[in-house]
Protein backbone atom coordinates (compact mmCIF):
# COMPACT_ATOMS: atom_id res chain seq x y z
CA UNK A 1 0.00 0.00 0.00
CA UNK A 2 1.13 3.53 -0.74
CA UNK A 3 0.03 5.91 2.01
CA UNK A 4 -0.06 9.53 0.95
CA UNK A 5 -0.52 12.39 3.33
CA UNK A 6 -1.01 16.02 2.54
CA UNK A 7 -1.79 18.89 4.89
CA UNK A 8 -4.50 20.46 2.72
CA UNK A 9 -7.19 19.31 0.33
CA UNK A 10 -5.67 21.36 -2.50
CA UNK A 11 -2.45 19.39 -2.19
CA UNK A 12 -4.42 16.16 -2.29
CA UNK A 13 -6.71 17.13 -5.13
CA UNK A 14 -4.32 16.32 -8.04
CA UNK A 15 -3.91 12.78 -6.66
CA UNK A 16 -7.60 12.31 -5.96
CA UNK A 17 -8.40 13.39 -9.51
CA UNK A 18 -5.67 11.64 -11.45
CA UNK A 19 -5.85 8.35 -9.57
CA UNK A 20 -9.57 8.25 -9.11
CA UNK A 21 -9.44 8.03 -5.33
CA UNK A 22 -12.82 7.56 -3.62
CA UNK A 23 -13.69 9.10 -0.32
CA UNK A 24 -13.83 6.49 2.43
CA UNK A 25 -16.79 7.65 4.49
CA UNK A 26 -16.10 5.27 7.33
CA UNK A 27 -13.61 7.82 8.66
CA UNK A 28 -15.17 10.71 10.57
CA UNK A 29 -12.22 12.54 12.05
CA UNK A 30 -10.14 12.82 8.90
CA UNK A 31 -10.80 12.91 5.20
CA UNK A 32 -9.47 9.67 3.73
CA UNK A 33 -9.47 8.81 0.01
CA UNK A 34 -8.72 5.40 -1.38
CA UNK A 35 -8.09 3.15 -4.31
CA UNK A 36 -6.87 -0.42 -4.22
CA UNK A 37 -3.23 0.65 -4.07
CA UNK A 38 -3.35 4.11 -2.50
CA UNK A 39 -4.71 5.51 0.74
CA UNK A 40 -4.57 9.27 1.11
CA UNK A 41 -5.23 11.20 4.28
CA UNK A 42 -5.58 14.95 4.68
CA UNK A 43 -3.82 15.72 7.94
CA UNK A 44 -4.53 19.38 8.49
CA UNK A 45 -1.80 22.00 8.81
CA UNK A 46 0.94 21.66 11.43
CA UNK A 47 3.29 19.01 12.77
CA UNK A 48 1.02 17.94 15.60
CA UNK A 49 -1.94 17.42 13.28
CA UNK A 50 0.38 15.66 10.86
CA UNK A 51 1.59 13.28 13.57
CA UNK A 52 -1.92 12.55 14.82
CA UNK A 53 -3.32 11.87 11.36
CA UNK A 54 -0.48 9.58 10.37
CA UNK A 55 -0.73 7.67 13.64
CA UNK A 56 -4.46 7.33 13.04
CA UNK A 57 -3.90 6.11 9.50
CA UNK A 58 -1.15 3.61 10.21
CA UNK A 59 -2.64 2.17 13.36
CA UNK A 60 -5.87 1.41 11.54
CA UNK A 61 -4.55 -1.83 10.05
CA UNK A 62 -1.35 -3.77 9.66
CA UNK A 63 1.55 -2.31 7.74
CA UNK A 64 3.87 -4.37 5.58
CA UNK A 65 7.55 -4.25 4.75
CA UNK A 66 6.73 -2.98 1.26
CA UNK A 67 4.36 -0.21 2.36
CA UNK A 68 5.44 3.38 1.82
CA UNK A 69 4.34 6.60 3.44
CA UNK A 70 4.80 9.74 1.39
CA UNK A 71 4.21 13.21 2.72
CA UNK A 72 3.61 15.50 -0.21
CA UNK A 73 3.10 19.20 -0.01
CA UNK A 74 4.12 22.64 -1.02
CA UNK A 75 6.89 24.40 0.85
CA UNK A 76 8.69 27.70 0.97
CA UNK A 77 12.33 28.64 0.65
CA UNK A 78 14.31 31.82 1.02
CA UNK A 79 16.66 30.72 -1.73
CA UNK A 80 15.40 32.58 -4.78
CA UNK A 81 17.80 30.63 -7.00
CA UNK A 82 15.49 27.67 -6.66
CA UNK A 83 12.79 27.95 -9.34
CA UNK A 84 9.21 27.78 -8.10
CA UNK A 85 7.75 24.36 -8.80
CA UNK A 86 11.02 22.48 -8.12
CA UNK A 87 10.36 19.13 -6.48
CA UNK A 88 12.61 17.93 -3.67
CA UNK A 89 13.01 14.69 -1.78
CA UNK A 90 14.07 15.59 1.75
CA UNK A 91 17.14 13.88 3.17
CA UNK A 92 17.08 15.75 6.47
CA UNK A 93 14.26 17.13 8.56
CA UNK A 94 14.97 19.69 11.24
CA UNK A 95 12.39 20.48 13.86
CA UNK A 96 12.80 24.21 14.31
CA UNK A 97 11.45 24.33 17.86
CA UNK A 98 13.42 21.39 19.32
CA UNK A 99 16.36 21.63 16.91
CA UNK A 100 16.26 17.84 16.59
CA UNK A 101 17.11 16.45 13.20
CA UNK A 102 15.71 13.33 11.52
CA UNK A 103 17.05 11.45 8.54
CA UNK A 104 14.83 9.41 6.24
CA UNK A 105 16.97 6.70 4.60
CA UNK A 106 17.49 7.46 0.93
CA UNK A 107 18.16 3.94 -0.29
CA UNK A 108 16.46 4.17 -3.67
CA UNK A 109 17.36 6.02 -6.83
CA UNK A 110 14.85 8.77 -7.55
CA UNK A 111 14.22 11.51 -10.11
CA UNK A 112 14.10 14.42 -7.64
CA UNK A 113 16.58 16.91 -6.28
CA UNK A 114 17.42 16.53 -2.60
CA UNK A 115 17.27 19.12 0.16
CA UNK A 116 16.77 19.54 3.89
CA UNK A 117 13.50 20.84 5.26
CA UNK A 118 12.92 22.78 8.48
CA UNK A 119 9.57 22.31 10.14
CA UNK A 120 8.05 25.32 11.92
CA UNK A 121 5.00 25.42 14.15
CA UNK A 122 3.90 28.73 12.73
CA UNK A 123 3.83 30.21 9.26
CA UNK A 124 7.19 31.69 8.24
CA UNK A 125 6.73 34.96 6.39
CA UNK A 126 10.12 36.52 6.98
CA UNK A 127 12.45 35.76 4.10
CA UNK A 128 15.40 37.33 5.89
CA UNK A 129 15.20 34.81 8.68
CA UNK A 130 18.22 32.59 9.33
CA UNK A 131 17.13 29.11 8.33
CA UNK A 132 18.78 25.78 9.07
CA UNK A 133 16.95 23.95 6.31
CA UNK A 134 16.90 24.62 2.58
CA UNK A 135 13.11 24.43 2.65
CA UNK A 136 10.44 25.38 5.14
CA UNK A 137 7.29 23.43 5.96
CA UNK A 138 4.92 22.81 8.86
CA UNK A 139 4.47 19.03 9.04
CA UNK A 140 7.56 16.96 8.19
CA UNK A 141 9.11 16.56 11.66
CA UNK A 142 5.81 15.43 13.20
CA UNK A 143 5.06 13.04 10.39
CA UNK A 144 8.57 11.53 10.48
CA UNK A 145 8.33 10.83 14.19
CA UNK A 146 4.91 9.24 14.03
CA UNK A 147 5.42 7.26 10.83
CA UNK A 148 8.66 5.66 12.03
CA UNK A 149 6.75 4.12 14.92
CA UNK A 150 5.21 1.89 12.26
CA UNK A 151 7.62 1.91 9.33
CA UNK A 152 11.39 1.82 8.85
CA UNK A 153 13.34 4.92 7.86
CA UNK A 154 13.60 3.79 4.21
CA UNK A 155 9.81 3.52 3.88
CA UNK A 156 9.01 7.15 4.59
CA UNK A 157 9.46 9.93 2.06
CA UNK A 158 8.99 13.67 2.18
CA UNK A 159 8.40 15.24 -1.19
CA UNK A 160 8.16 19.01 -1.17
CA UNK A 161 7.36 21.29 -4.06
CA UNK A 162 8.53 24.87 -3.81
CA UNK A 163 5.57 27.23 -4.03
CA UNK A 164 6.90 30.51 -2.63
CA UNK A 165 9.81 32.52 -1.37
CA UNK A 166 8.18 33.01 2.02
CA UNK A 167 5.76 35.70 0.90
CA UNK A 168 2.71 33.55 1.31
CA UNK A 169 0.08 36.25 0.89
CA UNK A 170 -0.39 35.79 -2.81
CA UNK A 171 -0.64 31.97 -2.90
CA UNK A 172 -4.06 30.91 -4.06
CA UNK A 173 -5.55 27.50 -3.42
CA UNK A 174 -5.59 26.90 -7.14
CA UNK A 175 -1.92 27.63 -7.50
CA UNK A 176 -1.15 25.03 -4.81
CA UNK A 177 -3.01 22.35 -6.78
CA UNK A 178 -1.32 23.52 -9.94
CA UNK A 179 2.18 23.26 -8.39
CA UNK A 180 1.50 19.64 -7.50
CA UNK A 181 -0.50 18.59 -10.56
CA UNK A 182 2.46 18.00 -12.87
CA UNK A 183 4.27 16.00 -10.22
CA UNK A 184 1.47 13.60 -9.29
CA UNK A 185 2.17 11.03 -12.01
CA UNK A 186 5.99 11.01 -11.71
CA UNK A 187 5.73 10.73 -7.91
CA UNK A 188 3.31 7.85 -8.05
CA UNK A 189 5.07 5.91 -10.78
CA UNK A 190 8.33 6.17 -8.85
CA UNK A 191 6.57 5.07 -5.65
CA UNK A 192 5.16 2.00 -7.39
CA UNK A 193 8.62 1.05 -8.57
CA UNK A 194 9.98 1.29 -5.03
CA UNK A 195 7.01 -0.56 -3.59
CA UNK A 196 7.36 -3.46 -5.99
CA UNK A 197 11.11 -3.59 -5.34
CA UNK A 198 10.36 -3.98 -1.64
CA UNK A 199 7.64 -6.57 -2.13
CA UNK A 200 8.32 -9.17 0.38
CA UNK A 201 9.01 -12.56 -1.10
CA UNK A 202 9.77 -13.84 2.34
CA UNK A 203 8.84 -17.46 2.55
CA UNK A 204 7.52 -18.94 5.74
CA UNK A 205 5.75 -22.02 7.04
CA UNK A 206 2.34 -22.55 5.45
CA UNK A 207 -0.76 -22.18 7.63
CA UNK A 208 -1.09 -25.95 7.61
CA UNK A 209 2.51 -26.38 8.75
CA UNK A 210 1.96 -23.84 11.54
CA UNK A 211 -1.13 -25.73 12.73
CA UNK A 212 0.71 -29.03 12.63
CA UNK A 213 3.58 -27.56 14.59
CA UNK A 214 1.20 -26.32 17.31
CA UNK A 215 -0.40 -29.73 17.49
CA UNK A 216 2.95 -31.51 17.81
CA UNK A 217 4.00 -29.10 20.58
CA UNK A 218 0.80 -30.06 22.44
CA UNK A 219 1.13 -33.76 21.69
CA UNK A 220 4.68 -33.94 22.99
CA UNK A 221 3.96 -31.68 25.98
CA UNK A 222 6.95 -29.50 25.11
CA UNK A 223 8.18 -26.75 27.38
CA UNK A 224 8.49 -23.29 25.87
CA UNK A 225 12.28 -23.68 25.54
CA UNK A 226 11.79 -26.95 23.69
CA UNK A 227 9.11 -25.38 21.53
CA UNK A 228 11.53 -22.64 20.59
CA UNK A 229 14.24 -25.20 19.79
CA UNK A 230 11.81 -27.20 17.69
CA UNK A 231 10.83 -24.14 15.68
CA UNK A 232 14.49 -23.36 15.01
CA UNK A 233 15.19 -26.97 13.96
CA UNK A 234 12.15 -27.03 11.70
CA UNK A 235 13.21 -23.77 10.09
CA UNK A 236 16.64 -25.23 9.38
CA UNK A 237 15.04 -28.31 7.84
CA UNK A 238 12.46 -26.30 5.94
CA UNK A 239 15.08 -24.02 4.38
CA UNK A 240 16.76 -27.11 3.00
CA UNK A 241 13.79 -29.17 1.86
CA UNK A 242 10.97 -26.63 1.48
CA UNK A 243 8.46 -28.49 3.67
CA UNK A 244 8.11 -29.93 7.15
CA UNK A 245 4.71 -31.54 6.64
CA UNK A 246 5.95 -35.09 6.15
CA UNK A 247 8.15 -35.05 9.19
CA UNK A 248 5.51 -33.47 11.46
CA UNK A 249 2.87 -35.92 10.23
CA UNK A 250 4.70 -38.69 12.08
CA UNK A 251 3.95 -36.96 15.40
CA UNK A 252 0.37 -35.88 14.81
CA UNK A 253 -1.19 -38.94 16.39
CA UNK A 254 1.19 -39.40 19.28
CA UNK A 255 -0.26 -38.28 22.58
CA UNK A 256 2.30 -38.30 25.34
CA UNK A 257 1.15 -39.00 28.86
CA UNK A 258 4.12 -37.31 30.50
CA UNK A 259 6.78 -34.70 29.81
CA UNK A 260 9.38 -37.45 30.08
CA UNK A 261 7.76 -39.36 27.26
CA UNK A 262 7.50 -36.14 25.23
CA UNK A 263 11.18 -35.46 25.73
CA UNK A 264 12.04 -38.87 24.29
CA UNK A 265 10.07 -38.14 21.14
CA UNK A 266 11.51 -34.66 20.96
CA UNK A 267 15.06 -36.05 20.98
CA UNK A 268 14.17 -38.49 18.22
CA UNK A 269 12.61 -35.69 16.16
CA UNK A 270 15.67 -33.54 16.75
CA UNK A 271 17.93 -36.20 15.27
CA UNK A 272 15.73 -36.39 12.19
CA UNK A 273 15.89 -32.65 11.66
CA UNK A 274 19.63 -32.06 11.95
Amino acid at each position, binding site marked *: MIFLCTAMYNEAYPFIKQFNLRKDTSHQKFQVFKSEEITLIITGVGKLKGAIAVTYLLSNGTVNASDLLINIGVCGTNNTNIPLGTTFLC*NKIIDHETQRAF*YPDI*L*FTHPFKEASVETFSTLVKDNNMDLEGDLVDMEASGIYQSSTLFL*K*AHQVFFIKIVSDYLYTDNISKDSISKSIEDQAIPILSWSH*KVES*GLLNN*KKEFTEKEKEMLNQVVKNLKLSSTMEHQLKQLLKFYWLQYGTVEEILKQYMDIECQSKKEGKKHFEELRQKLI
Partner: protein
Amino acid sequence: MKNLDKSLYSPSFSHVYIEKQAMNHPNTKKILNHFSNAQIIEINHYKDIFSRSHQHYGLQKKSPKLILALKKDHLIYKGAEVCEDFGHPYFYYTSTMMNCIYDCEYCYLQGMYTSANVVVFVNIEEIFGEVEKLLKKHPIYLCISYDTDILAFENVIGYGREWMAFAQKHQNLTIELRTKSANFKAIQDIEPLENMILAWTVSPDPIIKKYENKTPFLKDRLISIKGALDRGWKVRLCFDPLLSIEEWQKHYKEMIKYTFSQVAAEKIYDISIGVFRVSKDYLKRMRKQRGESLLLSYPFETQNGISSYDVQQTQKMINHVYQWTANYVSKEKIYI
Protein backbone atom coordinates in the same frame (compact mmCIF):
# COMPACT_ATOMS: atom_id res chain seq x y z
CA MET B 1 17.39 -9.77 -9.57
CA LYS B 2 20.84 -8.25 -9.18
CA ASN B 3 20.19 -5.90 -12.12
CA LEU B 4 16.83 -4.87 -10.70
CA ASP B 5 18.58 -4.12 -7.41
CA LYS B 6 21.14 -2.04 -9.26
CA SER B 7 18.56 0.23 -10.83
CA LEU B 8 16.41 0.42 -7.72
CA TYR B 9 19.07 1.15 -5.13
CA SER B 10 21.30 4.20 -5.02
CA PRO B 11 24.98 3.37 -5.42
CA SER B 12 27.08 2.80 -2.30
CA PHE B 13 28.05 6.03 -0.57
CA SER B 14 25.61 8.12 -2.60
CA HIS B 15 25.23 10.11 0.63
CA VAL B 16 27.91 11.21 3.05
CA TYR B 17 26.75 12.33 6.51
CA ILE B 18 29.29 14.49 8.28
CA GLU B 19 29.34 15.63 11.88
CA LYS B 20 29.46 19.41 12.07
CA GLN B 21 32.63 19.18 14.16
CA ALA B 22 34.28 16.84 11.69
CA MET B 23 33.51 18.98 8.66
CA ASN B 24 36.87 20.72 8.54
CA HIS B 25 39.08 17.83 9.58
CA PRO B 26 41.76 17.13 6.95
CA ASN B 27 40.72 13.47 6.74
CA THR B 28 37.17 14.55 5.91
CA LYS B 29 38.46 16.57 3.00
CA LYS B 30 40.65 13.67 1.87
CA ILE B 31 37.70 11.27 1.94
CA LEU B 32 35.36 13.65 0.15
CA ASN B 33 37.76 13.78 -2.80
CA HIS B 34 36.60 10.25 -3.54
CA PHE B 35 32.92 11.04 -3.42
CA SER B 36 32.53 14.20 -5.43
CA ASN B 37 29.01 13.27 -6.60
CA ALA B 38 27.69 12.38 -3.17
CA GLN B 39 25.01 14.33 -1.36
CA ILE B 40 26.62 15.87 1.71
CA ILE B 41 24.42 16.07 4.78
CA GLU B 42 25.52 17.78 7.95
CA ILE B 43 24.70 16.01 11.21
CA ASN B 44 25.21 16.81 14.88
CA HIS B 45 26.32 13.41 16.12
CA TYR B 46 26.92 10.19 14.21
CA LYS B 47 24.61 8.31 16.54
CA ASP B 48 21.69 10.48 15.35
CA ILE B 49 21.82 8.48 12.16
CA PHE B 50 23.82 5.35 12.97
CA SER B 51 21.96 4.35 16.13
CA ARG B 52 18.38 5.02 15.04
CA SER B 53 16.09 2.15 15.99
CA HIS B 54 13.96 1.96 12.84
CA GLN B 55 16.61 0.91 10.32
CA HIS B 56 16.83 -2.12 8.04
CA TYR B 57 20.39 -3.45 8.12
CA GLY B 58 19.86 -5.85 5.22
CA LEU B 59 18.46 -3.22 2.84
CA GLN B 60 21.01 -0.63 3.91
CA LYS B 61 23.71 -3.10 2.84
CA LYS B 62 22.39 -2.66 -0.71
CA SER B 63 23.02 1.07 -0.56
CA PRO B 64 25.33 1.84 2.35
CA LYS B 65 26.03 5.45 3.21
CA LEU B 66 29.17 6.91 4.67
CA ILE B 67 29.24 8.70 8.01
CA LEU B 68 32.24 10.81 9.00
CA ALA B 69 32.56 11.52 12.68
CA LEU B 70 34.86 12.32 15.56
CA LYS B 71 35.41 9.53 18.05
CA LYS B 72 35.12 10.99 21.51
CA ASP B 73 35.07 8.06 23.91
CA HIS B 74 35.98 4.37 24.03
CA LEU B 75 38.88 4.99 21.74
CA ILE B 76 40.37 1.62 22.61
CA TYR B 77 38.78 -1.55 24.03
CA LYS B 78 39.93 -4.67 25.86
CA GLY B 79 39.75 -7.69 23.51
CA ALA B 80 36.54 -9.72 23.63
CA GLU B 81 36.45 -13.32 24.87
CA VAL B 82 35.57 -14.79 21.48
CA CYS B 83 38.75 -13.36 19.92
CA GLU B 84 41.96 -15.38 19.73
CA ASP B 85 44.52 -13.41 21.77
CA PHE B 86 47.60 -15.34 20.52
CA GLY B 87 48.91 -15.49 24.07
CA HIS B 88 49.16 -11.71 24.54
CA PRO B 89 48.17 -10.48 28.02
CA TYR B 90 47.46 -6.92 26.85
CA PHE B 91 45.12 -7.62 24.00
CA TYR B 92 43.12 -4.61 22.78
CA TYR B 93 41.23 -3.51 19.78
CA THR B 94 40.18 -0.19 18.38
CA SER B 95 37.63 0.96 15.82
CA THR B 96 38.67 3.72 13.50
CA MET B 97 35.83 2.48 11.32
CA MET B 98 32.57 0.65 11.93
CA ASN B 99 31.06 -1.73 9.37
CA CYS B 100 32.64 -2.66 6.11
CA ILE B 101 32.10 -2.61 2.38
CA TYR B 102 31.66 -6.37 2.18
CA ASP B 103 28.50 -8.26 2.98
CA CYS B 104 29.19 -11.62 4.59
CA GLU B 105 26.11 -13.63 5.48
CA TYR B 106 27.63 -14.65 8.81
CA CYS B 107 28.95 -11.20 9.76
CA TYR B 108 28.40 -10.58 13.46
CA LEU B 109 28.23 -6.82 12.87
CA GLN B 110 24.64 -7.25 11.71
CA GLY B 111 23.89 -8.43 15.24
CA MET B 112 25.99 -5.76 16.89
CA TYR B 113 24.92 -2.61 15.03
CA THR B 114 21.50 -1.35 14.07
CA SER B 115 22.88 0.24 10.90
CA ALA B 116 24.82 -1.05 7.92
CA ASN B 117 26.16 2.40 7.12
CA VAL B 118 29.92 2.74 7.30
CA VAL B 119 31.33 5.10 9.92
CA VAL B 120 34.84 6.49 9.62
CA PHE B 121 36.26 8.29 12.62
CA VAL B 122 38.38 10.96 11.05
CA ASN B 123 40.28 11.94 14.23
CA ILE B 124 42.66 9.00 14.12
CA GLU B 125 45.30 11.19 15.79
CA GLU B 126 43.27 11.11 19.01
CA ILE B 127 43.15 7.33 18.91
CA PHE B 128 46.92 7.32 18.46
CA GLY B 129 47.18 9.59 21.51
CA GLU B 130 45.13 7.16 23.60
CA VAL B 131 47.25 4.19 22.51
CA GLU B 132 50.39 6.12 23.39
CA LYS B 133 49.04 6.74 26.90
CA LEU B 134 48.49 3.01 27.38
CA LEU B 135 51.87 2.16 25.91
CA LYS B 136 53.49 4.10 28.73
CA LYS B 137 52.03 1.51 31.12
CA HIS B 138 52.68 -1.73 29.23
CA PRO B 139 53.18 -3.23 25.78
CA ILE B 140 50.03 -3.67 23.69
CA TYR B 141 48.77 -6.11 21.15
CA LEU B 142 46.22 -4.17 19.13
CA CYS B 143 43.73 -5.33 16.52
CA ILE B 144 42.79 -2.43 14.29
CA SER B 145 40.49 -4.08 11.79
CA TYR B 146 37.98 -6.13 13.76
CA ASP B 147 34.66 -4.37 13.28
CA THR B 148 35.53 -3.40 9.74
CA ASP B 149 38.01 -4.12 6.94
CA ILE B 150 40.50 -1.27 6.90
CA LEU B 151 42.54 -2.49 3.96
CA ALA B 152 39.45 -2.81 1.78
CA PHE B 153 38.94 0.93 2.30
CA GLU B 154 42.63 1.84 2.02
CA ASN B 155 42.29 3.67 -1.29
CA VAL B 156 39.80 6.06 0.27
CA ILE B 157 41.33 6.89 3.63
CA GLY B 158 44.71 5.15 3.94
CA TYR B 159 44.33 4.20 7.60
CA GLY B 160 46.42 1.04 7.13
CA ARG B 161 49.28 3.25 6.05
CA GLU B 162 48.77 5.61 9.00
CA TRP B 163 48.78 2.77 11.50
CA MET B 164 51.96 1.45 9.95
CA ALA B 165 53.69 4.79 10.40
CA PHE B 166 52.47 4.81 14.01
CA ALA B 167 53.66 1.25 14.66
CA GLN B 168 57.08 2.13 13.34
CA LYS B 169 57.46 4.68 16.13
CA HIS B 170 56.37 2.32 18.92
CA GLN B 171 58.28 -0.90 19.24
CA ASN B 172 56.27 -2.11 22.27
CA LEU B 173 53.12 -2.06 20.16
CA THR B 174 52.15 -5.03 18.00
CA ILE B 175 49.36 -4.48 15.51
CA GLU B 176 47.20 -6.98 13.69
CA LEU B 177 45.46 -5.75 10.57
CA ARG B 178 42.87 -8.28 9.44
CA THR B 179 41.37 -8.26 5.97
CA LYS B 180 39.55 -10.22 3.31
CA SER B 181 40.63 -7.78 0.65
CA ALA B 182 43.02 -8.28 -2.23
CA ASN B 183 44.41 -4.82 -1.72
CA PHE B 184 48.01 -5.33 -0.65
CA LYS B 185 49.02 -3.21 -3.64
CA ALA B 186 47.71 -0.14 -1.79
CA ILE B 187 50.46 -0.52 0.82
CA GLN B 188 53.12 -2.43 -1.07
CA ASP B 189 55.53 0.50 -1.09
CA ILE B 190 55.76 0.47 2.72
CA GLU B 191 58.78 -1.21 4.31
CA PRO B 192 57.66 -4.29 6.29
CA LEU B 193 57.50 -3.86 10.04
CA GLU B 194 58.57 -6.32 12.72
CA ASN B 195 55.69 -5.30 14.97
CA MET B 196 52.86 -5.50 12.46
CA ILE B 197 51.02 -8.59 11.32
CA LEU B 198 48.89 -8.64 8.18
CA ALA B 199 46.17 -11.23 8.74
CA TRP B 200 44.11 -12.58 5.88
CA THR B 201 40.89 -14.48 6.28
CA VAL B 202 41.13 -17.27 3.76
CA SER B 203 38.02 -19.13 2.65
CA PRO B 204 37.18 -21.70 -0.03
CA ASP B 205 35.74 -20.18 -3.21
CA PRO B 206 32.33 -21.91 -2.86
CA ILE B 207 32.02 -20.19 0.55
CA ILE B 208 33.21 -16.86 -0.81
CA LYS B 209 30.66 -17.06 -3.62
CA LYS B 210 27.79 -18.05 -1.41
CA TYR B 211 28.44 -16.38 1.92
CA GLU B 212 31.07 -13.66 1.53
CA ASN B 213 29.26 -11.33 -0.82
CA LYS B 214 31.38 -8.66 -2.53
CA THR B 215 34.69 -10.05 -1.20
CA PRO B 216 37.57 -11.01 -3.52
CA PHE B 217 37.98 -14.62 -4.62
CA LEU B 218 40.56 -16.88 -3.04
CA LYS B 219 42.95 -16.55 -5.97
CA ASP B 220 43.01 -12.75 -5.63
CA ARG B 221 43.43 -12.83 -1.85
CA LEU B 222 46.35 -15.23 -2.35
CA ILE B 223 48.01 -12.91 -4.86
CA SER B 224 47.90 -10.20 -2.19
CA ILE B 225 49.18 -12.58 0.48
CA LYS B 226 52.03 -13.66 -1.77
CA GLY B 227 52.88 -10.03 -2.45
CA ALA B 228 53.04 -9.31 1.28
CA LEU B 229 55.19 -12.38 1.98
CA ASP B 230 57.60 -11.63 -0.86
CA ARG B 231 57.99 -8.12 0.48
CA GLY B 232 58.89 -9.57 3.90
CA TRP B 233 55.72 -8.89 5.91
CA LYS B 234 54.59 -11.13 8.75
CA VAL B 235 51.46 -12.78 7.40
CA ARG B 236 48.86 -14.59 9.44
CA LEU B 237 46.33 -16.82 7.74
CA CYS B 238 42.96 -17.15 9.40
CA PHE B 239 40.97 -20.24 8.55
CA ASP B 240 38.21 -18.71 10.54
CA PRO B 241 35.24 -18.85 10.63
CA LEU B 242 35.04 -22.47 9.48
CA LEU B 243 31.50 -23.12 8.32
CA SER B 244 29.79 -26.46 8.61
CA ILE B 245 28.23 -26.60 5.18
CA GLU B 246 27.68 -29.51 2.87
CA GLU B 247 30.99 -31.07 1.78
CA TRP B 248 32.95 -28.82 4.11
CA GLN B 249 35.76 -31.39 4.26
CA LYS B 250 36.24 -31.29 0.52
CA HIS B 251 36.09 -27.49 0.32
CA TYR B 252 38.52 -26.79 3.16
CA LYS B 253 40.92 -29.53 2.12
CA GLU B 254 41.07 -28.16 -1.41
CA MET B 255 41.44 -24.61 -0.14
CA ILE B 256 44.40 -25.54 2.06
CA LYS B 257 46.04 -27.48 -0.74
CA TYR B 258 45.53 -24.62 -3.17
CA THR B 259 46.68 -22.00 -0.67
CA PHE B 260 50.00 -23.69 -0.07
CA SER B 261 50.48 -24.30 -3.77
CA GLN B 262 50.38 -20.54 -4.20
CA VAL B 263 52.19 -19.23 -1.12
CA ALA B 264 55.34 -20.50 0.57
CA ALA B 265 54.16 -22.22 3.76
CA GLU B 266 57.49 -21.69 5.54
CA LYS B 267 57.13 -17.93 5.18
CA ILE B 268 53.77 -17.80 6.96
CA TYR B 269 54.06 -16.21 10.40
CA ASP B 270 51.24 -18.20 11.94
CA ILE B 271 47.78 -19.59 11.31
CA SER B 272 44.62 -19.34 13.33
CA ILE B 273 41.80 -21.82 13.03
CA GLY B 274 38.33 -21.35 14.48
CA VAL B 275 34.76 -22.31 13.77
CA PHE B 276 31.90 -19.86 13.41
CA ARG B 277 30.96 -18.53 16.84
CA VAL B 278 28.97 -15.53 17.91
CA SER B 279 27.24 -14.17 20.98
CA LYS B 280 23.77 -15.59 21.46
CA ASP B 281 22.18 -12.14 21.43
CA TYR B 282 23.88 -11.17 18.19
CA LEU B 283 22.80 -14.44 16.59
CA LYS B 284 19.20 -13.70 17.47
CA ARG B 285 19.39 -10.35 15.69
CA MET B 286 21.34 -11.78 12.77
CA ARG B 287 18.64 -14.40 12.22
CA LYS B 288 16.04 -11.66 12.21
CA GLN B 289 17.99 -9.77 9.57
CA ARG B 290 18.45 -12.81 7.38
CA GLY B 291 15.39 -14.94 7.95
CA GLU B 292 16.19 -17.14 4.98
CA SER B 293 19.79 -17.88 5.80
CA LEU B 294 20.34 -21.61 6.07
CA LEU B 295 23.78 -20.90 7.47
CA LEU B 296 22.40 -18.88 10.39
CA SER B 297 19.38 -21.06 11.03
CA TYR B 298 21.65 -23.99 11.91
CA PRO B 299 20.70 -25.29 15.36
CA PHE B 300 23.80 -23.98 17.13
CA GLU B 301 24.51 -24.79 20.74
CA THR B 302 24.98 -22.01 23.24
CA GLN B 303 27.52 -22.15 26.05
CA ASN B 304 28.32 -19.21 28.30
CA GLY B 305 26.42 -16.91 25.99
CA ILE B 306 28.33 -17.98 22.85
CA SER B 307 26.54 -19.87 20.08
CA SER B 308 28.46 -22.23 17.85
CA TYR B 309 28.42 -25.74 16.44
CA ASP B 310 28.22 -28.48 19.07
CA VAL B 311 31.44 -29.68 20.70
CA GLN B 312 31.72 -32.78 18.51
CA GLN B 313 31.25 -30.93 15.26
CA THR B 314 33.58 -28.14 16.38
CA GLN B 315 36.29 -30.60 17.26
CA LYS B 316 35.84 -32.56 14.10
CA MET B 317 36.19 -29.46 11.95
CA ILE B 318 39.12 -28.04 13.87
CA ASN B 319 40.95 -31.39 13.94
CA HIS B 320 40.57 -31.94 10.23
CA VAL B 321 41.61 -28.44 9.26
CA TYR B 322 44.46 -28.60 11.78
CA GLN B 323 45.76 -31.87 10.33
CA TRP B 324 45.53 -30.67 6.74
CA THR B 325 47.30 -27.45 7.67
CA ALA B 326 49.97 -29.28 9.67
CA ASN B 327 50.98 -31.06 6.47
CA TYR B 328 52.44 -27.75 5.36
CA VAL B 329 53.12 -25.65 8.44
CA SER B 330 54.83 -26.61 11.70
CA LYS B 331 52.38 -27.21 14.52
CA GLU B 332 53.83 -24.49 16.79
CA LYS B 333 52.61 -21.96 14.30
CA ILE B 334 49.02 -23.13 14.37
CA TYR B 335 46.62 -21.58 16.91
CA ILE B 336 43.27 -23.23 17.57
